[in-house]
């Protein structure tokens, strides 16, 4: 089984973000970066499938500046076989551009499965995987939280609002991975050493013209300051009064 996993390098969301002087990007100074968590689940899923099949290859792709090679190395240290870096000055906001470049690279790779995270928290878009699937004209299941593969076919579980969907799909397929599918392994020391010697190619990303551009960034408006109504059950009558008369939600 030949599996590709697309991983994104994302900033730690605990950070205090600052808008750059250009007004359309974030200042990266001082930010910590790591592999997007759902993408780590996708890597884990790929590794488990390969281990179960007893053979195969897990190839990791990441698009962005040279620093994304660290993210690829992390996936290699988890156990992936080789990496492909699609080089770009920065990771564009337009998910379609990213998808186009990834699809161009994946097109002739003869992959049985191409795995993505469900969403990246920086773009907060959740679109790249399904666009790649359409560009490659292959089956696609998004937000997979359960997976079984047998006889070149798969069954996936998806969480809907208040419901679950069980979906059958044929290969080749694109899957986007949601929480619940697995817990990603930590790279072992041996894995980290081995990763240093694994092949990692780099070539320019074929991004094309973006169809979505950032005009400006702003911090969300502060909520009006709240108040502590009181302590313990004694504060309940006052809270109820506020909910009725001030907030008018009761």
């Amino acid at each position, binding site marked *: 089984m030949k599996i590709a996993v697309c991983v994104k390098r994302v900033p730690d969301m605990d950070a205090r973000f600052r808008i750059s002087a250009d007004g359309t990007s974030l200042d990266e100074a001082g930010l910590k970066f790591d592999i997007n968590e759902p993408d780590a689940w996708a890597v884990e899923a790929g590794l488990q499938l390969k281990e179960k099949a007893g053979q195969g290859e897990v190839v990791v792709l990441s698009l962005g500046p040279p620093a994304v090679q660290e993210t690829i190395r992390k996936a290699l240290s988890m156990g992936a076989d080789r990496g492909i870096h699609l080089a770009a000055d920065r990771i564009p906001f337009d998910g379609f551009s990213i998808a186009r470049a990834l699809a161009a690279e994946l097109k002739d790779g003869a992959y049985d499965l191409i795995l993505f995270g469900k969403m990246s928290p920086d773009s907060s878009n959740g679109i790249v995987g399904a*666009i790649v699937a359409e560009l490659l004209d292959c089956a696609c299941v998004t937000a997979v939280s359960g997976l079984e593969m047998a006889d070149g076919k798969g069954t996936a579980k998806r969480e809907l609002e208040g419901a*679950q969907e069980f979906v059958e799909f044929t290969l080749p397929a694109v899957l986007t991975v949601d929480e619940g599918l697995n817990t990603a392994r930590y790279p072992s020391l041996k894995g980290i050493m081995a990763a240093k010697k694994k092949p990692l190619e780099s070539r320019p990303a074929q991004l094309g013209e973006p169809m979505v551009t950032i005009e400006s960034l702003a911090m969300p408006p502060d909520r009006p300051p709240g108040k502590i109504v009181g302590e313990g059950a004694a504060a309940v009558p006052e809270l109820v009064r506020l909910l009725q008369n001030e907030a008018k939600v009761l």
Partner: protein
Amino acid sequence: MPNILAFAEQRSGELRKVALENVTAARALADAAGGEVHALLVGGAGIAARAEQLGKYGADVVLVCEHDAFKDYNPEATAALAAERIKSGGYRVAVFATSAQGRDLMPRVAARLGVGIVTDVTEARIDADAVVVQHPINIGKVIATASIVSTPAVIGLRPGNTTLAEHARAGKVEAIQPVGDPAAARVKVKEMKVGASAKLDIGDAPVVIAGGRGLKSAEGFKLAEDLADAFGNAAVGATRAVCDDGWRPHSEQIGQTGRVVSPDLYIAVGISGAIQHLAGMRTSRTIVAINKDKEAPIFKIADYGIVGDVAEVLPALTAAVREARKSH
């Protein structure tokens, strides 16, 4: 004329609330631009009966595709149909919901059309040469204003962000045919299991009672359930810590890796208020926090807070809410 296509999501033959939100929002876009709203309704036998409701919220035309292969969600055939319609109808904007289904469907449609897409949109307007949207990035810590320069533009609205408004329009029904064979799909929904009860979904409920580790155990959530019952229009949500511990299903998780909700009232009980949790609820209209630690970060975002033990405060609040609702 810049017409707008609004996708009308349904489940098991019933319109979802986001379908009405989409039509309401599309109506506002169309009115500002002097165009019409066409709703696209795809479903199994009998789905045409739901068209009237879409007219009530502002659809001038309802394009209805009724076919057995659309009884369950059929991603490929729905994407093919929507893309074909959007192209042949010459729409300026196609409006979807950023729901589980919409998240699956709209990137497929955008890819087929080769056009720009932004999901989780909180505001949109049509300019001369772009559709300009607001979209929270970095889990809502930054708000991006983005231009989609393609025609059409595909946008996914944040569920709960549009206040429903009726604008009676003709809702003229036009029956349409599937594109290709809708039964010949590589991806097939075999089964859909709807949650144990017919309870309100956290995305649709006007009131959300969200519980955290402060509720102590799965059984402890009874306190939150009781409060939700007292409201009558409330649903129970949870933090990731709680879902990871198996106290609640992941479908109830609110936050960065869970659901994003914007109810009228959000009551956080025994929740610390980690940034990843705030990502899923910070746009709620009124936020109440109950936590025994007065330094808990959740109080920074709450409109009203009570410092106290949930075991003591929740039963009192439940009784008071019951009383208040009785006297309506």
